[in-house]
């Protein structure tokens, strides 16, 4: 059986979408069932995705903006999308890189997170390896992980007011350093 079918069989309706590119498989699951889905993928004897290689966030807002931008006559650029191409509302992805140590196969699991409710369950109860990566996603994107034992900033200092990996955060910063010195 192909890996795609095995994942469909294991996750059932939890596999919202399965995508393959350059041999990499990624599956989207609803964020409300993330723990359930990851546990199933880990415990399934045929799949056995028992190793969390990494966990990180992606901000899709620029892609959505580009897709929805209307095309002026004579301009080069993306086509104006039809109604069906309109972006789905969730702005962020949290991506889990899984690995099966038995079969050496990899899988990406993706949960979509809306900007107005940036909360998802922590998977530290399944893998302790998620401890720092979840703190980093919280730090860089402002996504909170429910049930994380110690959710603090990791790469930036505690008083840092923004989330630098969000697409609307400017590359040159927002002058936070100066504000902190004068305060």
């Amino acid at each position, binding site marked *: 059986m192909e890996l795609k079918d095995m994942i469909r069989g294991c996750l059932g309706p939890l596999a919202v979408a399965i995508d393959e*590119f350059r041999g990499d498989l990624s599956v989207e699951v609803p964020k409300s069932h993330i723990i359930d889905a990851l546990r199933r993928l880990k415990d399934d004897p045929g799949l056995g995705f028992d190793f969390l*290689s990494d966990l990180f966030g992606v901000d899709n807002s620029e892609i959505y903006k580009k897709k929805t931008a209307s095309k002026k006559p004579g301009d080069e650029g993306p086509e104006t999308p039809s109604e069906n191409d309109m972006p789905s509302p969730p702005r962020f992805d949290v991506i889990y*890189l899984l690995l099966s140590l038995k079969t*050496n196969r990899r899988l990406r699991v993706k949960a979509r997170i809306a900007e107005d409710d940036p909360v998802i369950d922590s998977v530290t109860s399944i893998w302790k390896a998620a401890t*720092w990566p979840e703190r980093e996603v919280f730090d860089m994107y402002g996504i909170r992980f429910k049930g994380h034992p110690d959710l603090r900033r990791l*790469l930036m*200092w505690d008083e840092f007011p923004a989330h630098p990996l969000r697409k609307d955060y400017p*590359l040159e910063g927002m002058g936070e350093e100066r504000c902190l010195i004068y305060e």
Partner: protein
Amino acid sequence: MFQDSSLSGHSTGDYVKINIGPSHPAMHGTLRVVAWTDGETVIKADPEIGYLHRGVEKMGESLTYHQFIPLTDRLNYCSAICNNVAYEIAVEKLLGIEIPEKAQLIRIIMMELARIADHQVCVGILGVDLGAFTPFFYLIIQREEIYEIFEWYNGARLTNTFGRIGGVEADLPDDFEQRWKELRPNLLKAIDETDKLLTHNRIWMDRTIGVTAFSPEDALNWGFTGPCLRACGVKRDLRKDEPYYMYDKFAFEIPVGRHGDVFDRYMVRMREMEESIKIIDQAYKMYKELPPDAPLMAKVPKVIKPPEGEVYRAIESPNGELGFFIKSDGSDKPYRIKIRPPCYMVYQAFPEMVKGEMIADLIACLSSLNVIAGELDR
């Protein structure tokens, strides 16, 4: 005194709080560990990364695919070449191209030299941190020779900016064989001398055997890879398990430990250096069999615009699985680059590793993990 649930019901006032680092000779980079101790026993440790964060991933979003290569030099500066290749192999996967055999062999030779240099620094500094200064000199002199080869090949010692997307810029110069013939016995001699000075040394054994031992189950749960995982007895190496380039054509061993302690991490690195020498020998032999005018670069457009999509590709760097996730939106700049640094996953388990150990062992543990601040903080 406030209560801290992680201090087994006691208030923090019952213990002595010690700040180790950032200005401590045994702390690497700008790392700081806040430790609560009962006598000399560590009850709790809380590591801080050090706020060196340079935003390499964010900068990647504003640079083209080629322009990002020099930034990868600055991640793990002990083995910049492996970081370059890890990024390039991910972009090549995104583009769907295979690089020519000759370029693969040159990359393998340079990566294995970088692995030896990285392990030499790690083992040498572990010795220094535990009071054994001499092996550091034996190893560092040979590392210098490896850096001479890097400089002679691509003009830089530390920040090599090695390789190009699609292959390598230049062929190995003609006198590589001569240089390698001179260097090879010296590398083996340095390993042998370090072995003689440390491995059966009573003080060394007392300071390392059984110190911060970690079970294979815990190591996998915490996301360990590389020498730290293999020291726990798990035989996993991406060069064998997910072979890239021509690694599946070489005969070499994967050294593993049994107890996952500081001694095993040291031994795994020592044996890996010898295995890397074997790989270089075989790779150079295969290289010589190729015609002199064999191509060095695959056909790659000047402006790289990969199709929309996302890929993840990892290599076995000296510290373990070093992977790059790249998301492309079809433009000439990556939409998102995520680096998976190996020592990041290992270092997050540090509080659990040192709990119940002595303060002096905390230093031994940190050195044996080979935590590189640039790689950790990105």
